[in-house]
């Protein structure tokens, strides 16, 4: 398993993602420069957080036209797993890989603090290590994280089970006060129709170490267990399964 982490000018969570994959999960990770034209044989791609191109025009609007995005879009269309975190989520929406958009927080403030999110679905390459209903604590750090979409789009997301993470309170309820940015339906993360492309505003890579909490580690561990439908003989199966079990135990203890 080789995870590619794309670096745009202004990415600033690339190192955290790298460490989460290398040290947290123990699998190979490489950086992919935004001007590159190939994905270096990676099995999955992460678009990390940050302020690509200074967030000029709209967050993610310029990064979407980076040369490597052509490859990322083709990879995603081919069923490859792609994770967009924070600014990466914004880029995926601008690129049309995910529906809707992320606009200024309703408070107009940059929000930087831990939030609780509930895992709504586990059938994506990034959530198989969790159980439905698990509540995870992860930090957010964004000024433009309010998820908006036409009513028909958000209804379709709900109907097709494509809301993956939702902001919740300590009781696990999706209340207005638990919503840090005014997102429609407390949406914190969604996936595409093929369930291979996932975007979320909270930062799992900043909750992937003993010091900062480990609730986000499962997002990266899930990649080990993931197989593309057309994949050849499974690799690292035993290791992947034991890690999945560990995560289940930890998630159970936390909830």
């Amino acid at each position, binding site marked *: 398993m080789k995870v590619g982490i794309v670096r745009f000018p202004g990415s600033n969570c690339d190192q955290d993602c790298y460490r989460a994959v290398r040290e947290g999960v123990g699998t190979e990770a490489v950086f992919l420069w935004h001007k590159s034209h190939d994905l270096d044989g990676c099995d999955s791609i992460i678009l990390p957080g940050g302020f690509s191109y200074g967030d000029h*025009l*709209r967050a993610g*609007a310029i990064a979407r*036209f980076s040369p490597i995005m052509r490859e990322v879009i083709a990879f995603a269309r081919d069923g490859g797993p792609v994770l967009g975190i924070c600014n990466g989520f914004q880029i995926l*929406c*601008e690129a049309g890989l995910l*529906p*809707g*958009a992320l*606009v*200024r*927080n*309703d*408070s*107009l403030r940059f929000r930087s603090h831990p939030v609780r999110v509930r895992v709504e679905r586990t059938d994506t390459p990034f959530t198989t290590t969790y159980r439905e209903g698990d509540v995870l604590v992860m930090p957010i750090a964004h000024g433009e994280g*309010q998820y*908006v*979409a*036409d009513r028909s789009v958000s209804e379709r997301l709900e109907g097709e089970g494509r809301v993956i993470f939702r902001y919740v309170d300590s009781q696990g309820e999706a209340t207005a006060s638990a919503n840090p940015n*005014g997102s429609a339906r407390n949406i914190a993360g969604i996936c595409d129709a093929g369930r291979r492309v996932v975007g979320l505003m909270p930062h799992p890579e900043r909750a992937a170490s003993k010091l900062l909490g480990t609730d986000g580690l499962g997002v990266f561990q899930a990649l080990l267990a993931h197989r593309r439908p057309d994949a050849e003989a499974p690799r690292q199966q035993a290791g992947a399964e034991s890690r999945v079990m560990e995560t289940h135990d930890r998630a159970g203890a936390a909830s």
Partner: protein
Amino acid sequence: MSSEAERMRFRIEIRVTPREGIVDPEGQTIGRALDNLGYRGVHHVQSGRLVRFELEAGDAGAAREQVTRMCEELIANPVIEQYDISIAEPIRAPEPAEG
């Protein structure tokens, strides 16, 4: 090319504002601030972005067609924003091509 020399330069202004039904927290905050300052009767404040540039094109129709594509592709996000394009009379012909 001879056709290049005949192109005119148009002054373009694009106003991008939140689409109807999309929350505009910035506009709302400006509205509240105006109210706090004592300005009464202010409604439906919208805040947006102005993009201005000059564009060489054969005629106004060609300019508008090109600017519309620019808006759809980059300058506005049609999911959340609407845009108005205004095109002024051509300001001057570009310098004749060398040679």
